[in-house]
């Protein structure tokens, strides 16, 4: 299954919604969508929120794409916030102890506040 990506402009910046499998084959699509967001939000983007509630599977290439997104955010002073992690994504994050490096929120509303 390929990944479906939707990008939404929100007050704080952008909301990226991912649906399906974020893996070796599809992570380049996510990377392209993020690059487009960084291009558009060059000035004044406070945060990039990523909704992971519909992600069925994520491998290390998928995580690397999120890492790259976070590193790009750090360079521009924006925040990368992950929200609504689906159970498979939550498992991957727990196993690899990724919770300490990403900002993770239970809901999009939570992730949108305090920016």
């Amino acid at each position, binding site marked *: 299954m390929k990944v479906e990506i939707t990008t939404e402009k929100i007050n704080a910046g952008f909301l990226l919604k991912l649906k399906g499998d974020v893996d070796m084959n599809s992570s380049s699509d996510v990377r392209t969508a993020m690059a487009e967001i960084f291009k558009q939000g060059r000035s004044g983007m406070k945060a990039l929120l990523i909704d992971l509630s519909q992600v069925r599977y994520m491998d290390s290439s998928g*995580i*690397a794409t999120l*890492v790259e*997104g976070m590193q790009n955010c750090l360079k521009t002073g924006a925040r990368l916030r992950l929200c609504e992690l689906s159970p498979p994504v939550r498992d991957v994050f727990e196993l690899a102890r990724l919770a*300490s490096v990403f900002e993770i929120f239970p809901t999009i509303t939570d992730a949108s506040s305090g920016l």
Partner: protein
Amino acid sequence: MKKLSNKARLEQKVKRLSTLIEVNGLISSSLNLDQILENVMAISKQVMNADASSLMLIDEKTKELVYQVALGKVGEKLKQEFRLKLGQGIAGTVAQEGKPLLLEDAYTHPKFHRAHDDATGYRTKSMITVPLKMGERITGVAQVINRLDGSVFDADDLELFIALCGMAAIAIENARMHKSLMEKQRLVKDMEFARTVQESFLPQTTPEIASYTFSAHYTPAQEVGGDFYDFIHLDRGRIGIVIGDVSGKGVPAALYMAKLGSDLRTLAFTEKDPASALQKLNTMLAERSRRGMFATLLYVELETQSGKLTISNAGHLPPLIKKADGSVGKLATAGGSPLGILAGMQFGQETALLDRGDTVVLYTDGIIEAMNDKEALYGYERFEALVRKSDPDPELLKSAIIEDVNLFTGLSPQHDDMTLVCFGVVK
């Protein structure tokens, strides 16, 4: 309409048939798609007595029609300056709907896009536009425009042009398949290279230390993941044992792993303990991060005299320890994040004591995520149960695990490397 005698009609049919045979020969004679399409359109223009002909291919990324061939007085200008969106103009409409269109006067069609004529000063009148199709997939459209004798194209012309376009579509499909075959061959070569890089960095032998047994196994995945392991002889009484897994696969993962492995080898000697080695390594990797690549890694320092283990864990699966009494537990469960994500992260370490008969099992996720032909996972529970019931001797335990995983997966190709390192004190 053109009025032709029966004889002239017959002659025309023969000529058209010969053209089709000629074009058929053309498309199978070469794999140079640009040249083939140029020739097919030149022949179409000539045999259909057209003033201009063109062929556009769909750019899958932008969903636009891009001129591949444009023959006629304004052809070059068209090629350089114009593109059409799917659904835009006559060509865009035919590309979207997949149905051929014969127009006696293009200007009467509501979809006709006059911008090209306005920009070039050309006046389009009669035209035929045909989709290039392979099965249901549309790859582009071809057009012939304005008969040189001033008459309009008719149903016979349409029929002939459809046949010619069918051949152009075959040529496009052949070229696409050839390209994909070449890409596959290149990928296979890349994978072989990645495998060579990867394997050249893995230890060729296991350490030989009195009263200890070390055993290791590595199976590369079909696409070559980024697993690695290493033994570092620190001094007479200390040895470093490393296992890790780089994100992603193929050449990038193999090269990242090679660099990481050599950096860790240096830091293992210069830093005071495993936690500070990983701390430095993490910052080095994060500062030169490319494409978000990272690695999970477990670094164990073993003092051979006392059996003391100092373990620092960067997001890797906690190792198992099988004690001499048969019990099985996890070590270094409270680890830090993977390496290379954020500079300046702190890493902790924990210690444990290895007694006679104890065996430590380090492994990568390729083992517990090994999959059989029913897409079922080998799984952690099965793994732990096997460690529990197997002989604790490191060599025997390693073999038992590999055998059991292979039995489970059968001949299914695996998507991740499988790496296993077992070591312990001889009873």
